[in-house]
Structures are given as C-alpha cells and as structure tokens.
C-alpha cells in the first residue's frame, strides 16, 4: 500500500464518515440510528488504522482497536439493550423536518470547510484535508441533539460529536496521547452507564423519553 493510496483511502473513509453523520440526521427509527452509529465507529476505527499505517505512528493501532471495541461493539450493545428494555421502537419525531435539517447540515459542512481553511494552509500532514470533515461531524452531532426530541437520539448525537472530536484529533495531530485517549474512552463508558440509569428514571417518571416532557419541570405557570 503506497502512501498516496493510503491518503486516498483515508479521504474515502472521511467521506463515508460524513455520509454516516448525515444518515444519523435522516434516520427515523431508533434501531436504525444505533446501527448507523456502529457503522460510523467502524469507519472511524478503519480510518485510524489507515492513518497509523501511513504515518508510522503505531500507537494509533491501539486507538483503532479501542474504538472498535468501544464504539462498534460495546456502546451499540448497551444502547441496543436499553432500547429493548424500554421498548421504544416507534419512529422518532424531529423538531425540524428532515429535508430542512439536511440543508442546514450542508451549510454547516460548508461553514466548517471555511473555518478550517487557515489550518489547511499551515499543516503539512496528509490528513489535513479531513479536518473539515471532522469539524463537520461534530457540528452535525450537535445539530442532531438540537433537532431531535427523543432522549436516546440526544445521547447518540453526543456520541457522534465525540466521534467527530476523535477524528479531528487524528487528522490534526495524528491522535492524542495514549493516556488522554484511554481516559476519554473510560469517560464515555461511564457516561453511557449514567445515561442509561437516567433514561430509566426519566422513563418511569414521565412514561416517555420525549425530552419535550421535561418542559413540565419549569416552575412558572
């Protein structure tokens, strides 16, 4: 595998990660969302491995394996169990309709391209062009959290944002130091457990996971 080929492969993977971020915005079914999230994790893990190979930074292989374990197997499994336990299979309602969200998404991508332009000029890493995609993934995750009403989609949005951050780290500086990465992974795991516990409580209190219900907590009126 030559260096340029690895760069091209990485571009393709970046493009697919971007696509999966849009797929998360478009998908209506919760199980579908979990599947897409797992795919995104897989793409991320592959991309990390490719960058590791091409740059010769071998600690990225460990990151790649960690991503594979956490984001492709463990977290989706936890979410899968959660969805089954809470018996939520219905379509999720969005606050803003899907085509409009998509258009907003496209604008965000263009915006992140514009934001990362100066960094692209400065950097000489082979992954510098994927930085825009990483930033866009973060923004799209945020957009997903804003436009969706269901609590599970909120955590998926959060996890997608984390994916974006991780991707940004690998593209900008060939990954964070190992200690930090391990810490983040552990944090994520704990966050997922805490979310799970919260979901149970929210569900028993409101008999729904629609976050709009929480507006009832407001004291006025």
């Amino acid at each position: 595998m030559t260096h340029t080929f690895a760069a091209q492969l990485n571009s393709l993977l970046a493009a697919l990660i971007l696509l999966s971020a849009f797929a998360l915005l478009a998908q209506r079914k919760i199980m579908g969302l979990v599947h897409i999230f797992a795919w995104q994790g897989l793409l991320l893990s592959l991309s990390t491995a490719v960058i590791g190979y091409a740059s010769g930074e071998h600690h990225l292989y460990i990151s790649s394996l960690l991503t594979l374990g956490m984001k492709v197997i463990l977290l989706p499994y936890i979410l899968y169990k959660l969805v089954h336990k809470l018996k939520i299979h219905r379509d999720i309602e969005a606050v803003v309709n899907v085509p409009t969200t998509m258009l907003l998404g496209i604008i965000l991508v263009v915006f992140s391209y514009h934001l990362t332009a100066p960094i692209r000029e400065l950097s000489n890493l082979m992954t510098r062009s994927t930085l825009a995609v990483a930033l866009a993934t973060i923004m799209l995750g945020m957009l997903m959290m804003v436009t969706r009403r269901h609590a599970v989609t909120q955590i998926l949005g959060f996890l997608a944002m984390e994916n974006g951050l991780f991707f940004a780290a690998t593209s900008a500086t060939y990954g964070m130091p190992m200690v930090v990465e391990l810490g983040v992974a552990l944090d994520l795991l704990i966050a997922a457990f805490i979310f799970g516990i919260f979901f149970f409580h929210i569900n028993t209190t409101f008999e729904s996971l629609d976050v709009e219900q929480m507006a009832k907590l407001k004291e006025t009126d």
Partner: protein
Amino acid sequence: MSLHPFVIELLQFALLLGLAPAFAGWVKVLKCRVQGRTAPGILQPYRDIRRLFGKDIVLAENASWLFRFTPYLTFGVTAIAAGIIPLISVDLPLSATADVIALVMLFGIVRFFTALAGMDIGTAFGGMGSSREMTIASLAEPAMLMAIFTVSLASNSTSLTQMVSVMAHSEFVIRPSLAFALAAFILIALAETGRIPVDNPATHLELTMIHEAMILEYSGRHLALIEWAGMMKLTLFFALGIAAFCPWGIATGGDTGLLLLALVALAAKLVVGACIMVLIETGLAKLRIFRLPEFLGSAFLLATLGMIAFFILE
C-alpha cells in the same frame, strides 16, 4: 480494419434501437427469477411491440393532433439521445450535438409532451399521472444537475465524449466524489425511468400508477412507439451511467477489434447493472408519493456531498 465515425454512429443507432427491447426483456426475466415467478423469455418485448404495431388504433373522440403527434415525438427525441451517448467508441460525430445538460433537457421534452398527452383526453387518470410525473421531475432535477456538476468537476467538462475519455484514460484513483455522485445518479435514474420505489412500471392499479396513467389512452402503433421509446430510455440511462462512471473498455477510434471488445464490455456492464437494479427493485417497496421528496432529497444530498467531497478531500 478501421470504421468511419459515421458508420460507428449508425451502428450505435441500430444497436440501441434493436437491443433496447432485449435489455428490457432481460430485466423482466431477471426480476421474475428473483421473485420466483415464471419468466416470459427475453424476446417477449419484441413480440409485444410487433403485436401492437399490427393492431388498429382506438382514439377517443376528442383526441387532438397533439395526442397523435406525441408518440412520434417521444420516439424521435429518444432516438436522437441514442446517438449522443458514447456506447462503444468515443469517436462519435453526433455526440457534440448535446452535452449532459442538454441531454437531460431532451428527456425533458419527452416528459413535457407525454404529460400534455395525458391531459388531452380529459380523464381524471391522465391529469393525475401528468401532475405526479411533473412533480417528481421537478424534485429530481436539482439532484440531477448536482450530480452532473460533481462528475463534470473531475473531467472539467460536461461534454460526454470528453468525460468518457478522461475517465477511461486516467489512472485508478479513489474518488469519493464520484462514488457519491454515482449513488445520487442511481436514485435519480430510478425516478426518471419510473422504477420502484418511485413508480411501478408493471402496475395498472389506479391509485399508484404515474407513468402508466399518462399513456393509458394509447393503443396500436402509438402505444408501440411509446413502449419502445420507454425501453430505449431505460437502456440510455444505463448507458449514461456507464459512460459517466465506468467507461473502461470503450474504444477510442474505429478499430474493429477494439469495437468488438468494447461491445462485450458494454454487454457485461449492462448485465451487471440490470442485476443491481433488479435487486433494488425487489428489495424495496414502492414509496408513498409524499415520501418521494425525501427520497429525491437524499439524492440531492448525496450529489452535494460529492461536490463538497471533491473540494474538501481531493
């Protein structure tokens, strides 16, 4: 031995006119096999067309000249389009008649007049078909243009011969932009040629038909021409996809050996393409008409992502 470009042009006309029904038949056979039905045989479309040509025409009392003229125009315009897309050789003199945008507009003429013919008799079905067809076309158009734009970025051209030569002779590069554009193109092609999940070519169920509703009043040779043009259009969309995304194997000149090789490559690609389409058609159910904006919206999204990917990543 080398053939004159005009001979190749004529050859291509003959090829598309002659083989489009066979291709449509092949799609039908495949679909039957996949769905576990008995297949009618690959030559059935020829028999259908021959039968229709032999039949008398039954016209409604108030059918106007436009209704009788439309089948000829449909056939004529589709035939012109057949001379433009390079199939077996890049050296195609009439290919410069229209670039991709003009080609899309040529299909637009067919649609315009078919929709008008649907409204000519004054039945409710015709109007319904026309209205839906024009709506779908309107929503598909931006996605189509975006896909064209993305493809044209790579070759710096919208001229088909130029696109084919650039694609066929550049070394292998992974281009995410083209992958996205291809995905978008497949969705659009399904919509433009009226296949599942957008329209069902086999249905005559009143509430779901779109294209069939417009041509419901046609009979005899008029219907034969429309059906034939429809088969050509299906083949042409495949040819367009092949030309824009995987033209490998196409001949550059008029050399007979290379032409034969190109013909074999084309046939293989068509066979594979038909398999993909049949799998899509079998795997998906027809969408509700008001789900279509999302379907075509995703085509637009894919094409736009392709364009963005070109600028960001390539």
